[in-house]
């Protein structure tokens, strides 16, 4: 489904019977959507300039600092400085690594548990307990258990992220359409076909929702895990700025984390739209 935005050409009036696109068209539409953000930014700038507080530097100063700190590197690597690479690299690796491990484990376990009533009855209390434990509470434990700091951080991310993925997958796999399983049995679909052509796609809408929740959790847990005993990454940078009372740098890291979360979520949504296009369309027509 593509929504084409026409700039009121000769056929502009002819198609007026069609439902108007929900979002505004063209440059005016973009302006209509960002004006509030621009206003907020302007307000922030003016407010902080008036206040002249060391704790609240103006956004222009934050942006300048971010640029100087991270984007003044060689052109060959998109201007990223060494400091940027040393911060973003390890943090993203922990976050995405932990999310991937949790995704694979969560989906595999979830499908098995979702398809077996007996197994579900056994492990349900365990899952309920496990998800109720705040992952941050386990950081001290993981610090003792794992000699390597990176392992501790990965474990923290995995442990926090796996629950929504696991629970959503169980839910998706549990309620397969009876007629679909009948078809699979009558036509003797193989185990692999049942898994990849029936269970996974049928559970996909729920699984994807779990993966998205997990992704946003993984940012939080990445930072939390880096606030202890780390020597690089966003969490370490935050602590370091705090101890140096370098508030502009501290704010810069907060802004970057916000941008990172936004970009990840937007990317994920774009992928989701492609992967689940059958689901959206089938919902619309039936």
């Amino acid at each position, binding site marked *: 489904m593509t929504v084409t935005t026409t700039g009121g050409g000769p056929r502009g009036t002819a198609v007026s019977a069609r439902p108007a696109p929900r979002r505004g068209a063209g440059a005016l539409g973009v302006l209509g959507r960002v004006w509030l953000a621009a206003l907020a930014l302007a307000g922030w700038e003016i407010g902080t300039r008036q206040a002249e507080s060391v704790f609240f530097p103006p956004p222009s100063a934050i942006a300048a600092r971010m640029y100087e700190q991270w984007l003044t590197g060689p052109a060959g690597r998109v201007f990223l400085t060494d400091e940027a690479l040393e911060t973003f690299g390890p943090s993203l690796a922990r976050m995405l690594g932990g999310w991937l491990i949790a995704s694979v484990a969560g989906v595999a376990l979830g499908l098995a548990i979702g398809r077996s009533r007996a197994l579900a009855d056994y492990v349900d209390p365990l899952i309920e307990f496990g998800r109720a434990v705040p992952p941050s509470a386990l950081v001290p434990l993981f610090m003792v258990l794992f000699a390597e700091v990176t392992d501790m951080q990965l474990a923290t991310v995995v442990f926090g992220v796996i629950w929504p993925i696991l629970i959503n997958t169980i839910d998706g796999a549990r309620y397969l359409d009876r*007629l679909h399983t009948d*078809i699979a049995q*009558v036509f003797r679909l*193989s185990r692999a076909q049942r898994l990849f*052509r*029936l269970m996974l796609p049928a559970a996909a809408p729920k699984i994807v929702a779990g993966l998205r929740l997990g992704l946003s959790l993984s940012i939080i847990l990445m930072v939390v895990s880096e606030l202890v005993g780390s020597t690089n990454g966003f969490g370490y940078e935050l602590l370091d700025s705090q101890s140096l009372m370098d508030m502009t740098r501290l704010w810069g890291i907060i802004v970057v984390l916000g941008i990172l979360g936004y970009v990840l979520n937007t990317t994920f949504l774009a992928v989701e739209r492609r992967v689940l296009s059958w689901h959206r369309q089938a919902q619309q027509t039936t």
Partner: protein
Amino acid sequence: MLDVVNLSHTYGTGPKAHHALGGIDLRVAEGELVCVVGPSGAGKSTLLRSIAGLLTPTGGQIRVNDTEVAGTPGDLAVVFQDYSRSLFPWVTVGDNVALPLRRRGKDKAARRAAAAEALAEVGLSGAAGKYPWELSGGMQQRVAIARALAYRPALLLMDEPFGSVDAQTREDLEDLVLKVRDHHRMTVLLITHDIDESVYLGDRVVVLTKAPATIAGELKVDLPSPRDQIATREHPAFVHLRAEVGRLVRGRDEHAPARP
């Protein structure tokens, strides 16, 4: 080819138990098209699900080619009533048809060719790349029939296959079933609550009683072939047969002209 011997089934136990089937004996010969009719709730679907191996009957036997089967017989295809749920919405029409053929040891190209051929046979050539939800209800049911055809089953079970489509589509699909059945000499067991349909399609009509279902009677249909939606339905023998079946379904008499 198919022998159902003293088949009985009870759902649940104790005072809440529901006796769906009370001892059914049914025989379908090779190449025969048998229609099973009965009042709603007579256990028609229980009978079909038992034969398909989708439920384990509490009593009796099912034999295919003189061998007793437990579970789903190997050479069996089913067309269900609810076409909107019987296809997988996440794969294309072509893949829906081709999916069961993997077990038949065909390579990808052969599976695709077989699917295209079956789709052409039901009048849907060119639809292989579409998704089920892009098709109308009648077309979706054609896809379900194509899936069964491509599978080349020895026995085709149909559970009220045209119960959810409009009248015109229904007639088209009835004639489609007659055509492909003639072409492939398939053995078909079709379940319906529609008396006219059972007489129009069947070589033989078997009538079930209310639950717990037993055989109320059966009638041989000797109408001229090929059948025609207009001419066959005004044939005196058709009118007579449908009256007979109607009486059996209503359970007018215990001493009906049973078992000719």
